[in-house]
């Protein structure tokens, strides 16, 4: 009866147990509620973890897990007052190290943050990276993010969030028109080289995503924000489909098809000559023209005819200017 590989949750729960024990030792006596709040997990999970710790230990000399070989807790306090106090300790005194991968994830995250104006304190970041490396069980893997351009808009977004005020800016929308927008900033995200501001748009009265490089003349306002990260559910996708979306069928070399992953293609269908056909949802035909003109793998828009024409005109226009 070979066991299935433990789910990721089992190792996550182990990491939690190994972390919880030394923390509880340091606290002495602490309520389940305070523990749950500190680690940001449900109270039930804390109770389960404490119950497991209380019956765990080492085989000991008798190899029978005798009473003194096990952790123990003040059971009455736990059962009657929902309070935890370890009364017998086994094997663990101190907090565990970070794994090499955990440290690497935090270090790469720090490098990314240090490219942002508000976290540009390089000395503080370097100190932290040193601590993480020393606190890891092996050398952190080599993952790094290069510095980007320090952006004036990012700086203003940060100041708007800090001051709790709305941000306003000129935005060139999808159809080329420029509008003055007022936004409650919620989050900044980047996908590859492209930066986006997600926020509550007072003009559209909805959550909208703005490309940072299409934002012009940004300014702080005096108006306080109406919406905060804590009360708006941000969908995972940057952009939501709209009824005006056009479905476009594109054919290209199968090897290049993964490059379209960002456009959430559907119905990939093999075509002779190691090519595939897939359908993309786009907001307007101009998007397809830009996409296809820059894509490797000999892409061809098959349908609709209007999209084919848009691509051809776009390319011919480019040739005229050259």
């Amino acid at each position: 009866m070979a066991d299935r590989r433990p789910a990721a949750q089992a190792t996550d729960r182990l990491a939690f147990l190994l972390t919880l024990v030394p923390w509880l030792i340091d606290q002495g006596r602490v309520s389940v509620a305070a523990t749950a709040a500190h680690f940001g997990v449900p109270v039930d999970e804390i109770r389960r973890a404490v119950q497991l710790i209380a019956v765990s230990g080492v085989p000991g000399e008798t190899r029978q897990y005798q009473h003194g070989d096990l952790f123990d807790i003040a059971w009455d306090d736990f059962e009657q007052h929902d309070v935890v106090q370890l009364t017998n300790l086994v094997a663990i005194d101190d907090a565990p190290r970070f794994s090499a991968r955990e440290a690497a994830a935090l270090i790469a995250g720090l490098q990314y943050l240090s490219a942002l104006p508000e976290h540009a304190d390089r000395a503080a970041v370097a100190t932290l990276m040193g601590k993480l490396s020393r606190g890891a069980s092996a050398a952190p893997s080599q993952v790094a993010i290069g510095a980007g351009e320090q952006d004036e808009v990012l700086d203003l977004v940060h100041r708007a969030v800090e001051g709790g005020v709305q941000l306003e800016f000129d935005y060139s929308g999808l159809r080329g028109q420029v509008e003055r927008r007022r936004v409650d900033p919620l989050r900044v995200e980047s996908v590859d080289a492209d930066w986006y501001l997600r926020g509550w748009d007072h003009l559209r009265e909805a959550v909208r995503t703005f490309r940072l490089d299409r934002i012009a003349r940004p300014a702080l306002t005096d108006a306080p924000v109406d919406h905060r990260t804590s009360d708006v559910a941000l969908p995972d996708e940057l952009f939501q489909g709209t009824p005006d979306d056009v479905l476009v069928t594109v054919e290209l070399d199968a090897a290049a098809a993964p490059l379209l992953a960002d456009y959430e293609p559907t119905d990939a269908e093999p075509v002779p000559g190691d090519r595939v056909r897939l359908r993309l949802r786009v907001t307007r035909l101009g998007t397809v023209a830009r996409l296809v003109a820059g894509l490797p793998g000999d892409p061809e828009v098959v349908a609709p005819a209007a999209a084919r024409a848009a691509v051809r005109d776009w390319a011919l226009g480019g040739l005229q200017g050259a």
Partner: protein
Amino acid sequence: MPAARTPRVPVEERLFSLVLALLATDHGLTKGEILSTVQGYRQRWSSAGDNVALERQFERDKDDIRELGVPLETIDDPAAAGNNQALRYRIPRGAYELPDDISFSSEETALLTLAAMVWREGTLSGESRRALVKLRGLGGTDSVPELAYAPRVRSRDAAFEPLRTALDRGVVVEFDYLKPGDDSPRRRVVAPYALVQHQGRWMVAAVEPDTGRSKTFLLSRVTGPVRLTARTAERPDDLTASSALAELDRLWAERRAVVRVAPGSDAETRLTKRRGSVPADDAGLEVHYVDLHVLAEELASFGPEVAVRRPDELRELVARRLRRVATAHEGSPRG
């Protein structure tokens, strides 16, 4: 007492008991001792003999525990070299515990919390979350400042995870790579030494084991699955993520092209804000790049919004690409 304790012991209880037992021993425990005495194994251990499934379970558990950064050590018995059953296992306390002098202020904890939130998908986000739990375990009960907004980065290239695993294991990988400018992908066999994001693009820096040359590959151009081989390769000391980034920065600073952009166009907005872009003579814009073919693709996508001034090779690449696209979209579809 607990012999009667059936049914199965939960996975985390078995793993927790294994860590406790191996931390508590100075001289180490043999596999036989572990399987016959440690909670979660002993219930399934047969003194009569066949413990093959249980031994396999133990091997997997060791891997899982090591993944968490727990330094599970194997000690060879010099008197019985090569005898698998005589190997002893333990977790040395010094390598397990966080050094005493490492602590984090509440400002540092806040910054690390933000750093962990940077990763919005993939295993980096899972590992960050686990690191945060460990970090919380170091703190008192005082609260960590609430974060008003968090910048996020996506690492969605399919090649990212397998390459990261290859980095950790120090092994050679194989993948199909569609080199910018080429028409078809070619098989690459390389030893990765760093994953870096440069100007928004994820790349893997790697050494070709046969030639010893260092190269960078765009993750978005890895067209098939990444296969990890059993062949190991030491990372040369001078090749790091920072050295890879520095080399890319050097190329970026050195390589420049001049284009004209249509006023008010998307191309103008984007190319002007590109790192290092400066106005050039005759209303031109000087832009930097690492790979001429990648730049040609980027510029071609701007269509009529951009005209290349120099170098000539770039102008020709863009024009050739646009001619090909225009031809492919004449009349009815060829399919």
